[in-house]
């Protein structure tokens, strides 16, 4: 039968990603949906032909081997603890948690229970990012000097709860909710940054525009621009002594490698954007980890590393006094 799975939290990401992905995998049996809004869970269960519906995680614990926690982040530490206590494996949506303290609660619970904890940094499963990682490992660019990241589009994610803009639910805005993907890619490729200079446009609330400067080991300097109010170039450009590599943020199908002044487009898959396929790859990786008790591609430590960095960014901003006059909307300070 494979792994019996429940998805906890029936918001947009469950509907658009986790549920259809689980339905596609042969060795995953999607046994139940769980949501405090049972009517919503029933609606999705009917739509995707999922046999059972529950309103709390405790009710489903005996029926499954693993859960996907697709709830807003502020409730995940308690849910993860419940799941691990019941002996379940956990795939946790990003960010792993809202703070380092909450991340530790989740990691400790997983270690105590000796169960798999994977984190849904879904873009790690993009074929072009995996290829980029291999190229960087092979030193295809020689010594890397600079990295320039731009990620931005006007917000349109059909969130049901609006958690990513609600300060009572989350301590961070675009950085914690969207920027986490590109940060995770950078840390995967270059390790943890040595320092940071941080600016955002929050004036007492949550940021929607961000600029970060950071340096990685080896003298790699990185500029990072992020927005959920405007369209940016949406690419990660890595410059090295032997050439440059440009990886699109949203287009998983290709990357561009420039060497000796010549740019070659490398096509790695036929579909530009296939969210369900990415989520499927993530779930497959999670299932393999469960079956082998090996580490998933994105571990709890990976999830905590990004949250740690983001917490440091916010701490740097909080040292500054708010301006007296409202700045031009979107301008970082």
């Amino acid at each position, binding site marked *: 039968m494979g792994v019996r799975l429940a998805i906890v939290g029936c918001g947009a990401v469950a509907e658009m990603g986790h549920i259809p992905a689980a339905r596609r995998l042969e060795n995953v049996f999607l046994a139940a949906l769980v949501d405090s809004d049972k009517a919503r869970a029933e609606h999705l269960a009917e739509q995707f032909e999922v046999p059972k519906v529950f309103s709390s995680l405790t009710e489903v614990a005996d029926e499954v081997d693993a859960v996907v926690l697709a709830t807003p982040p502020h409730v995940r530490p308690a849910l993860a603890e419940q799941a691990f206590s019941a002996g379940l494996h956990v795939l946790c949506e990003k960010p792993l948690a809202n703070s380092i303290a909450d991340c530790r609660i989740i990691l400790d619970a997983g270690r105590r229970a000796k169960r798999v904890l994977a984190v849904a940094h879904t873009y790690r499963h993009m074929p072009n990012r995996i290829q980029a990682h291999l190229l960087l490992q092979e030193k295809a660019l020689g010594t890397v000097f600079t990295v320039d990241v731009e990620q*931005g589009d*006007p*917000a*349109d*994610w*059909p*969130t049901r*709860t*609006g958690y990513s*803009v*609600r*300060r009572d639910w989350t301590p961070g*805005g*675009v950085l914690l909710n969207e920027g986490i993907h590109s940060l995770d890619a950078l840390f995967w490729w270059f390790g943890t940054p040595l320092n940071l200079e941080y600016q955002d*446009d*929050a*004036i*007492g*609330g*949550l*940021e*929607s*525009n961000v600029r970060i400067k950071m340096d990685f080991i080896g003298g790699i300097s990185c500029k990072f621009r992020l*927005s*959920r*109010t*405007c*369209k*940016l170039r949406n690419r990660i450009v890595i410059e090295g002594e032997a050439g440059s590599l440009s990886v699109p943020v949203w287009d998983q199908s290709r990357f561009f490698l420039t060497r000796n002044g010549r740019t070659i487009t490398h096509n790695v898959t036929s579909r530009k954007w296939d969210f369900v396929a990415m989520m499927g790859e993530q779930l497959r990786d999670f299932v393999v980890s469960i079956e082998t008790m090996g580490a998933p591609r994105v571990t709890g430590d990976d999830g905590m590393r990004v949250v740690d960095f983001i917490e440091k960014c916010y701490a740097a901003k909080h040292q500054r006094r*708010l*301006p*007296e*006059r*409202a700045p*031009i*909307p*979107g*301008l970082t300070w």
Partner: protein
Amino acid sequence: MVGYSGRRILITGGTGFVGGRLAERLALEERAKVRVLVHDWPKAVWVSRADVELVQGDVRDMDLVTKAMRGCEIVFHCVGVGGTPDNCRSINVEGTRNVLKAAVDAGVERVVYLSSIAVHGPNPPNNADERDEFRLTGSPYGDSKVMAERLVWQFWQEHRLPVVVVRPTFVWGPRSAGFTLSPVNGMKHGRWFLVDSGSGACHAVYIDNLVDALLLAGVTPGAVGEAFLITDEKRCTWAEFFGYYARMLGVRKLPSVRSDVARFALPVTEYINGALARFDYIPAHEPARILVRSVRWGLRVTARWIFPDDSLDSWDLLKYARQGQLDTSKARTVLGYTPRFSLPEGMRETEAWLRDQRVI
């Protein structure tokens, strides 16, 4: 600071352009406790940057409006949409009725209603002031604003609900869709036309000038039961106004249409475009599919040949061709409103925003 410190304020339309800027200034500069009614969460990415409370709601839902208004002293009702007549009526008119009813029930201190110059039609007479008549013109937006404002005055008269009405002209600046983003994007693609070489009178209002007026309207003692037309300090021509955007983009000369020609051509193109919008059936199979699509394409090309600016409608034509003054002295004398931003100053801020947000 004007006098909002620690006071609980409800803003409808706070995820939008005017309401959003008002919310962030009330929270940051006035230290008010701001609550914003949110209909569409992704749109809250601007206002959520400020220290505000976001509550899910919809002005069409009386229960949600009532709940959102609990404990609030002052209400800024800034919701206003364009689009279909149904949308305009249900949100602008019935939504306003719900807000006013809830305000009466909650016993709020004051409701400031964001109306529009549109209640006076596209070309009010020379030296028109707040006493100029309301004009129903057939425009879904304009007519809905008239009906909504009539409701406001009805609640003032029948329920003694303390109301203040602010009627801005053409609001521009960072985040303005109608008078900043549309013209800039139009000019980028060579599709922004002046009317009569831009010789019409432009009475626009910069967003922060308008917000200054709204802040005054919320607390000025003599403002209750009054309406105020709000503009910038000086009028200019539309050529001067749009010329700023053209220079930002490096566009040397904006094309122009003649209003006397457009007056005849526009009804034809509006009819064609309206018919295309109404009859949008495309057959599923060839050859009917290709035939229908060809006819639609042909009609669109013909409409553009008859009149090149498909963003302009009859209302805009009258608005951009209008000559004459507006009398906005009442806002100065009663509210003490003085526009802080001149046209060049506002344009500098706007250009910084446009560049930062990669519009230009």
